[in-house]
């Protein structure tokens, strides 16, 4: 029993240490990206390429997820709203959930799965095949050429993706409301803009999106650049990155939600 408790404590301690170390590494990645950008060393061509590759490519995934998310919000709440004859609150209910919680979190998780893992795999491959050292040997600072463009592209992708996801999810919710509850889209719109939802709710969601973007960008970059041990090491880095990012997304979600509540 004592031995089991000791092992458990040691395991918890190790997890805590690796978490602190991981957050520290992510802070260093962010600082390096900011530093390179302030020095004017963020590579414009790489930023454009990253935005096209990571950003544009994510839109179909984000849109298709958002349609279903919006619809599911209505499917789940429809029986309750119908029982109390509160169909006119459908816009408010769906909007509240989508703008403040479901939109940013699901978009963050989708972008983490698609863009974050891709970023870790690419940087991991560049690292284990010495291509990052190849850049340094050519007197090219990887912070300006690799880090900063990817970090900004992922943050921007998460922000814009979340905004698109919010709009599409609301449209999906309105469509589901029409077909399942026979709530007219105008009634849905009136519920949405009745005054119980404000721009602060949109900002709340976008603040979360920004925080998730920072987490996805720094976590996936840090794990990629820390990959060791050839292709298996890249695989391990991708797995660790996806898990750590998901945990951090929920932690940031709680943090932003509680901060907003206090204010």
């Amino acid at each position, binding site marked *: 029993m004592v031995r089991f408790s000791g092992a458990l404590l040691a395991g918890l301690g190790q997890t805590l240490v690796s978490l602190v170390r991981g957050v520290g590494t992510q802070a260093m990645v962010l600082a390096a990206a900011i530093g390179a950008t302030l020095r004017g060393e963020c590579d414009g061509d790489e930023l454009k390429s990253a935005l096209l590759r990571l950003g544009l490519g994510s839109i179909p995934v984000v849109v298709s997820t958002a349609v279903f998310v919006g619809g599911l919000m209505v499917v789940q709440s429809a029986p309750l709203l119908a029982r109390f004859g509160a169909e006119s609150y459908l816009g408010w209910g769906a909007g509240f959930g989508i703008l403040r919680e479901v939109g940013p979190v699901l978009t963050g998780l989708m972008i983490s799965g698609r863009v974050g893992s891709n970023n870790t795999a690419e940087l991991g491959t560049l690292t284990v*095949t*010495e291509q990052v*050292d*190849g850049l*340094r*040997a050519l*007197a090219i*600072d990887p912070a300006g050429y690799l880090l900063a463009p990817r970090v900004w592209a992922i943050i921007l992708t998460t922000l814009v993706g979340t905004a698109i996801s919010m709009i599409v999810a609301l449209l999906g919710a309105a469509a589901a409301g029409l077909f399942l509850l026979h709530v007219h889209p105008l009634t849905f719109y009136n519920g949405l803009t009745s005054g119980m939802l404000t721009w602060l709710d949109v900002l709340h969601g976008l603040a979360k999106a920004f925080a998730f973007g920072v987490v996805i960008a720094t976590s996936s970059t840090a794990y990629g650049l820390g990959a060791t041990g050839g292709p298996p090491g890249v695989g391990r880095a991708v797995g660790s990155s996806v898990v750590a990012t998901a945990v951090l997304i929920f932690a940031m979600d709680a943090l932003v939600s509680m901060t907003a509540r206090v204010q």
Partner: protein
Amino acid sequence: MISLDRVYKSFESPVLRGVTLTAKAGRLLGLVGPPGAGKTVLLRAIAGLVEVDAGKIGILGREMVQCPPRTRRMLQSSIGMLFQNVALFDFMTVGENVAFPLKRRGEDARDVRERVRLELLEVGLSGFEDRMPTGLSGGQRRRVGIARAAVTRPPVLLYDEPAAGLDPVTTSRTFALLQKQRDRLGSTLIVISSDIDRLLPAADEVAVMHQGRILAQGTEREVRARGDPIIEQFLEGRIDGPL
């Protein structure tokens, strides 16, 4: 000139144990030794890719160890390096790989094209500009790496196993190319190679490394004349001996 003075580096265990070495300007220094001797780490330290624990590394009269990032980048821009596993950028074509160092220096696009063409011609890969590195053989990738290292005509060239995996004819051509680079560009070359039979005739000097130390440096004759049993066994490839 490149000079190293009592350079130390440890990872889990000591890798470099007080390396003192001099590569004279415009000469080709062959760096040889058994596997695990610390040759690659030494080359990476000279290139500023490994931060050493102690000692001095002078490149062209400037100190590389613990220098400001700007000085380090300035020194690195005077070095061309071929990595042991070549480290070509897989997301670029062969032509883009060779052109990359020139483009980063803001050279004129027409000049870049011409320099790339000439450099690839020099390594026997004329017409390979649009091929992707993943479609090349190991030897071809290595020759692209040599072209990329030398395309800026740097005063210092560091080659880690430039002839690994090449057939005897291509190996001889590669060493002839390195000698040509030394003569044409006046560059200082440090070359690690396991192919001692071809490296020694091409090198002006040789340094033998063992367990993180330089056992001897000089011409081939001077090194052999030391009578060190480890050097003798290694250079002659004998099975029996202290190694």
